[in-house]
């Protein structure tokens, strides 16, 4: 019998002295302690089951939101997806993916909504990135940093390329250092190269090897977790198709 339980039994015994005067009653009490042990065990099982239930709830909610994000078209759609991911992130506290997707949804919105104030959004996106990185700093967040820098760069490329161009480049390099096989980093880099005039070292021919690398990396990617980001590979194929179609 663990000392603690023995102690508590002793204590109880002293409190209910009148009840446990007879040895029979004392035996009964010992039995009740064994019962309590069983209760604890069962409760532990229940808790585990509950946590499984919660995890199922998490996966279900994330999957639903990912569908929402994939089908989002309007600013309101993206905002709804962001808010939903943010709520999951705030409630769970220990998982990074909700914040990652909250940021991703805002980035996609910022790139589609022409009237949006990019600087305000960038600030909001950065908050999500920081929250997510506080839980798990990984290369995926550098893809977000890359896009967030590009977003701010687009406001005024002529004036901003020195600051935000450098910021994007830093994000790319740090991301690759952390995970050299992340296809999304190369996909983003490929897009930047593609959109840079040939005279500045950009253009189709410089971008093609990057997209080919993305496709190869995406094929080899072994995602056991269905919630992890998978974009990049298909998009790279689309881009190459478009280039070759021209």
């Amino acid at each position, binding site marked *: 019998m663990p000392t603690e339980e023995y102690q508590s039994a002793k204590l109880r015994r002293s409190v209910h002295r009148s009840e446990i005067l007879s040895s029979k009653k004392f035996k009964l009490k010992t039995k009740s302690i064994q019962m309590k042990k069983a209760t604890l065990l069962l409760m532990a099982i229940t808790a585990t089951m509950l946590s499984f239930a919660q995890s199922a709830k998490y996966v279900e909610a994330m999957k639903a939101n990912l569908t929402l994000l994939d089908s989002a078209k309007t600013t309101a759609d993206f905002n709804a997806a962001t808010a939903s991911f943010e709520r999951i992130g705030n409630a769970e506290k220990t998982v990074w993916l909700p914040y990652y997707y909250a940021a991703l949804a805002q980035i996609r919105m910022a790139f589609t909504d022409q009237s949006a104030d990019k600087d305000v959004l960038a600030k909001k996106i950065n908050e999500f990135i920081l929250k997510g990185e506080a839980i798990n700093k990984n290369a995926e967040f550098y893809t977000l940093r890359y896009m967030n820098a590009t977003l*701010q760069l687009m406001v005024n490329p002529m004036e901003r390329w020195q600051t935000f161009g450098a910021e994007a480049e830093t994000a790319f390099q740090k991301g690759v250092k952390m995970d050299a096989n992340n296809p999304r980093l190369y996909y983003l880099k490929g897009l930047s190269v593609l959109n840079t005039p040939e005279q500045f070292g950009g253009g189709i021919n410089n971008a093609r090897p990057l997209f080919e690398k993305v496709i190869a990396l995406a094929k080899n990617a072994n995602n056991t977790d269905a919630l992890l980001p998978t974009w990049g590979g298909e998009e790279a194929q689309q881009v190459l198709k478009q280039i070759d179609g021209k």
Partner: protein
Amino acid sequence: MRRICFLVFFLFSIQFVNSQNFISGNVINKKGQPIVGATIAIKDSYDGAVSDSSGAFKFLHNVEAKDTIIFTAIGYKTYEMQLTTAEMNTTLKIILVEDITEMEAVIVRSAGSFMAGSNKKGVMLSALDIVTTAQNGDVTSALRSLPGAQQVGEQEGLFVRGGTAQETKQYIDGAIVPNPYFKGAENYAQRGRYNPFLFSGTTFSTGGYSALYGDALSSVVLLNTVDLPERPDVGFTISPISLEASTQQIAKNKQASWGVHYGLSFISPYFNILKPRIELFNGPTYHVADANFRIKTKGGIVKFFTSFNNNHSGIREANIDSNYLKNQTLVKNDNLYYNLSWQEQLGLWRLNWSNSLSYNKDNINGEIVNNLNQPERFSANEFWMNSKIFAVLNKETVFQTRVVLERKLKQLDAIRFGAEYNYLNNNLTYRATPSRLRENAQALFAEMDKYFSNKLAVVLGARAEYSSIINKINLAPRASIVYKVGKAQQATFAYGLFYQKPENSQLIINNNLDYLRAHHYLLNYIKSSSKQLFRIEAYYKTYENLIKTTLANGQQGYNNSGSGYARGIDVFWKDKKSIPLFEYWISYSYLDTKRNFANYTDLLRPSFATPHTASLVIKKFFLPIKTQINLTYSFATGRPYYYFQPHANGYTLKDQGKTITYNNLGLSFNYVPFVGNEHKKARLIWVATISNLLNSKQIYGYNYAYSGLTKQPILPATRQFFFLGLFINIGTDRTQQIINDNL
């Protein structure tokens, strides 16, 4: 055991059986307008919604006893409330209170100033705009394309809103720069000493500036040096008139950097080709050596910058009082400048400690020479001839230390206060007579920003200054009130009292002079978007205690009996939107000013002021030819000129007139042969610059013979200026930077 089973069942029932409720409502602001896109969330749950275009929301939630519902929206304060069961079935009406945020709030301190630099709100020009508009690598020339500054070609410095060049003071990283320009002969303007690429931020205040600064009646120029450079760099510049080499190195941990630079300019061979109307017998030669280091600290940065400059030039030009004599001037200048600053976050306070130490030596010799270049001597009664024969040795040491502490209060409110100490030691030897001026001056200042809402803010400041020579304390209040008049539009009213000490040369002769004084009243309106900016500002200034020059029995003296006023309108329009990939700005200044100062006999429009000034700046990069073209056109109406003939006990206005209008079209081409080729180790940029492309005649004023009967125009040394240079960069890509240098 049955009990346990029941317990398990009960726990699961919470999970799956409990009924869900709809939570619905509307989110509005204080005015009753719907807030679109507000997020509604139940704390620690997945449930929530985003408000729609009518501010309405509705979502399902398993109600628990202590649910907290949170409302958030950009620009509003977050609101949390406990959800009671009674509220479950009603429609919630949530009123969010506006939050004062940087994005939404009015911009304070924008009246009277042009900010250039990073992407901060309220910035009107980029750091790039400054360097691309700067001519001959002079920041001041870029600022001259902004409204409020006059086009004065014969003198260095900024003449702002009816003020003299001495009424504008320059600061680097918060500390004074007593001698920001090279020294040259009278009527030949010199350029600024410091390369525009040293700076990442520039604030040009044309009036009503902050209580943190003083001793300038009209304007301050605040320059901030770059923090750590992004990449190491080695560069060379080769042109027919200059050679330069520089390097910038960064520590491996990217927490520190150092750099050195040396440049030599020798303009005489070039002038020999251009055939200037003046005779050059010495130089002009300029040596510039500078060095810097920067160390990142825990919550800030330490920056050190030092420069040593030496320039000399000797010119001869016709003497107007005779047919064959020439005025000869030889100027030599040495300047040593140290600047050390420390910015640090100390708990809730932000420390800004700036120090500068400057040593400046001017050695100027004036002679009248004959056609064999031998000095001539004159009898005592020909004092107008004798006045041109002199020797000046002026040694000036200035030390300044300034501490500013800033604390952010709630929302955007802030308080700032600090103190400064100035030491001056000036040894002047004029015609072998030495004199000395020593001064200790202190100042205390405080300022606060108070935002009442996103729409309304005030800045209140005050400054007390004491000079040991004047031996008086002055008190200078400053205030401004900003109001948002519409979307991206704001109006500001600003008032300030400004003091300035008389010039050292005046205090040496009369140390009983008082501070000069000016009141500024500004009314400013700005409408801006990310690609367009319109700014209009009306101002009224009064000047008191200006220094007047007196003559008593031929002896020169000074008193504080001068006065004046200036009023006008400045307009600025910058546009990057109307024509794609094409950027321009237009400045226009209207100025009505009169002053009675120096040797003026009455309240007159000063010779450096003209009613109408305008500038147009255009920039465009042509990718197919790998060339950036920058164009600057400046226009100014004629300036008045006067001849005040000296006599034993004063001056008489003998003659006056108005110069022709001023036109200057500058054009620069920057050809980058290997643009974007990242594999090239060395990068080349060819720069070609032409000033006064149209070869317009420019007359800055007139010099008079003593009699006042003949006059000669004050002209630039050469009417046009051509420059061709090759910039080589090794190691890192500074292409864009150099493209933008030199217009």
